[in-house]
């Protein structure tokens, strides 16, 4: 890692910087996070920070749309909306809104594919009252029928309006193309499935997943941990717990068959996403793949795709790659938009770059060192905000990483060599199995 910077100094002939190791390694003391498990089973990560009179808290829950029954699509999304807007056992939705707004608390809730999250930011002087309402929403939601209707309208409108933005359409369609339209990782609700959802469905889904031992709490800000824990106990102490039987989620079949989906629209630009299946989260090759992805086109300007397609040829404003992992297989994809006349040319250029990388003859030490330095030197920004630190810790636990994963990650990235990148490029890239989704006009 020392070499590249020295080279830069020569070329630039002006940087008074040393060629030392990366910054996170020396001198920085990680803040001490308070962690433990409440008697009710909820895990917590806390970090006091008295600089500003603010408290931020989030609770993540293992639940999501992958667990929806096939005839209840949209259920998780709708419940997520209701966990903020639907009121509590003791308060109407309007009373909740007024309480939060009058104290300028910012609260939100949502449920995604495999994680639900409720979060709040509030002035510390109002934290006690805000938490009472927050946990009321989380554990005793009223699921007010007017707000259920409103939630349905919101989802249906969002589904319609997503079609207005071609960059969003292409991302959605690419996912469906690779995973399959009805895969739990890609399927979408329809106005019909959303319209048919009942309050009973919401109640049942909530009751099943929203129990303390299935949740992780993260909080940072102006509090003392012992008093904070007492407050949390006060509002969650009586919540019953049970073991959850998670439904089987159909596994993704690992295959690399090229598929194509074209959505014709009379646009001045063509929106393109191409790629194939990636890897699972705990695959030990992920570090080398991350470095490979940075070389190819992870979103910094100094990448092969950006340099060739944007800087040299002026063919695109946005071009980026992402080699992803997930609980099941993630996605490897390249996204690019270009004027309709050059769409064919750009698709071929991207394909050539993937072929070249997979062939792997010419990955240089310079490229490797740059990608590693970039990855390692920005790690310190995991620590520039107290809430970010605890929120990250909660996610590490959620995804099955050790609490000190930050160090593991750093060591693994440091170890990656040119040969590792060549090996994973050969193994995990499939230029013959590239699927491609296109939105726009395709002048052939």
């Amino acid at each position, binding site marked *: 890692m020392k070499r590249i910077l020295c080279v*830069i100094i020569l*070329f*630039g002939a*002006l*940087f008074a*910087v040393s060629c030392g190791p*990366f*910054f*996170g390694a020396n001198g*920085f003391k990680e803040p001490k996070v308070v962690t433990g498990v409440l008697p009710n089973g909820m895990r917590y990560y806390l970090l006091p920070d*008295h*600089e*500003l*009179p603010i408290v931020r808290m989030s609770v993540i829950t293992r639940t999501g749309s992958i667990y929806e029954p096939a005839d209840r699509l949209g259920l998780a999304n709708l419940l997520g909306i209701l966990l903020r807007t639907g009121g509590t056992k003791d308060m109407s939705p309007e009373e909740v*809104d*007024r309480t*939060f*707004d*009058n*104290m*300028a608390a910012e609260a939100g809730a949502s449920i995604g594919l495999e994680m639900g999250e409720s979060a709040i930011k509030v*002035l510390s002087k109002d934290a006690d009252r805000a938490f009472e309402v927050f946990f009321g929403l989380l554990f005793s939601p009223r699921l007010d029928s007017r707000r259920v*209707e*409103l939630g349905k*309208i919101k989802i249906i*409108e969002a589904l*319609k*309006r997503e*079609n*207005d933005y071609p*960059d969003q359409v292409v991302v959605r369609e690419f996912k469906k193309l690779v995973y399959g339209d009805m895969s739990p990782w890609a399927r979408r609700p329809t106005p019909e499935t959303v319209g048919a959802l009942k309050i009973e469905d919401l109640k049942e889904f909530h009751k099943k997943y929203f129990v303390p031992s299935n949740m992780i709490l993260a909080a940072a800000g102006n509090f003392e941990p012992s008093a904070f824990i007492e407050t949390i106990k006060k509002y969650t102490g009586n919540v019953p717990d049970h073991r959850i039987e998670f439904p089987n989620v159909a596994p993704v079949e690992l295959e690399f068959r090229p598929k194509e989906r074209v959505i014709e629209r*009379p*646009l*001045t*630009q063509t929106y393109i996403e191409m790629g194939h299946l990636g890897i699972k989260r705990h695959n030990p090759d992920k570090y080398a793949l991350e470095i490979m992805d940075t070389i190819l086109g992870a979103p*910094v*300007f*100094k990448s092969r795709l950006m340099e060739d397609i*944007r800087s*040299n*040829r*002026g063919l*695109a*404003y946005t071009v*980026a790659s*992402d080699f992803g992992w997930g609980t099941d297989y993630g996605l490897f994809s390249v*996204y690019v*938009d*270009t*004027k309709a006349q050059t769409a064919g040319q750009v698709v071929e250029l991207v394909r050539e770059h993937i072929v070249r990388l997979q062939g792997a003859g010419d990955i240089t030490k310079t490229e490797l060192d*740059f990608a590693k*330095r*970039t990855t390692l*030197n*920005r790690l*310190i*920004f995991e620590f*520039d*905000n*107290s809430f970010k630190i605890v929120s990250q810790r909660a996610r590490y636990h959620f995804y099955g990483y050790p609490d000190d994963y930050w160090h593991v990650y750093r060591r693994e990235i440091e170890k990656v060599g040119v040969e590792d990148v060549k090996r994973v490029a050969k193994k995990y890239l499939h230029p013959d199995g590239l699927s491609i989704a296109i939105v726009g006009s395709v002048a052939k």
Partner: protein
Amino acid sequence: MKRDLKTVLHYICLALILALPLTAGAFDLEKKVVEYKLANGMRWLLVVRRNAPVFSGVVMIRVGGTDETPGKTGLAHMFEHMAFKGSSRLGTKDFAKEKPILDEIEKTGFELTAEGQKAVPDKKRVASLEERLKILQEEAAGYQIKNQVWEVMVANGASDLNAYTSKDATAYHASMPVERLDLFLDVISQMVNDPVYREFYTERSVILEERRGGVDNDPDGKMSELLVETAFQNGSYHSPVIGSASDVAGLTIADAREFHDRYYVASNMVGALVGDIDIEKAKRLIDKYFGPIPAGIVTKERLVLNSGGGTKNFAFDAEPAVVLAYHKPTLPDHTEFVFDVIDVLMCDGPTSRLEKRLVYDEKVARDVSCSNSYPGSRLNNLMLFWMEPNRPHTPEKLTFEVEEELERIKREPISDEELGRVQTKVAAGILYSLEKNLGLAMSLAEFETIFGDWRLLARYPSLVEGVTKEDVMRTANEYFSDKNATKIIRLRGQKKK
């Protein structure tokens, strides 16, 4: 990650930042800021925060889309892209050899652009000039290090490295490990003071792509463009920041250089650093890198405000939406603070009047949002209400209901609870915005650059607190009238080309 900050800010502008001023509490901003003025007139604002060994920095220039002249729209933004292409020392292997080729590229590009701008371009000449340009660019590339600004910055841990151009200003920013303060100041000073206009003509194509994505194919981008065209029938606000496609296609290196030399002068620049910095060391480095920038003469601004208005419908292959806008004054006129109150009262949170009625109670709108400094803040601007109806409700119904609510604040004083809530929200909003170094650095630079005094940021909550119920009624009566309104309605249909 599909779109970067630049795209977003082009269209949304500064209203959000203005809505987030600063209050005392545990963190007294006025005492925290160290001012440092260089001999050449450049102003710096420094804030020490010891959370982590990092800092965020921004350099802002008081020049934006507002300063462009007719026929040259998009120039401020074009220059911003050029700054990332390096300097005589950055991005080159041998500038002495590269320079003569760059000069030839400039000449050839100028001829090509001039030919292309003719009513009937000579196709043969265009083709031969294009060929010559291509050869020259390949020759120059032999001496160039592509994207070295990015390479050096991100290899040294930069995050948030980017820039934006608004109607009011242009800003370059990054967050870095604190050991790299020297590098940050070195690179940014070269970007703003020593541009060499590398790859100008390729980058012009990139910007035309950016425009296709942000305006042509984006229903909201298109609606914003129509709004400024209609509300300001000509003058400094008439075009979007990215410029018209035909103007951008006609820009030359000479245009960019003239623009740079006129506006990128020390007396027109502000810098801000927030983070784990050593003040004395920071001052020394600032002197070293920004001290040599020419002071320059800030000439009288040539801004022209020309108002228009009225209703315009347009068709787009997208769900309907509507924006209703009213002309209003900007700072230092104190009416600005009254509009801040109206903004929160009407649009901020589920208890705000418009959200409560349109989104929650009647379920006729999917979303309502307000902005009270559109499209910029150096000239009088607009307060706007942007709404998206739920099917089957129409844009007309939503505007009718908003107009009813505006009539109500003309007639009836707002409640004590509402006024208290607005004041709490403004003060809390400022506190929340202090959490991040970059947010604070940007806000300080914006207030100093655009309004000439960063202290206004610190005093904002108390200024908003001075707003009375009578102020709200009087202001509503004065500005929310049909003759002062612009209305843009988007309906589903095929675009007319």
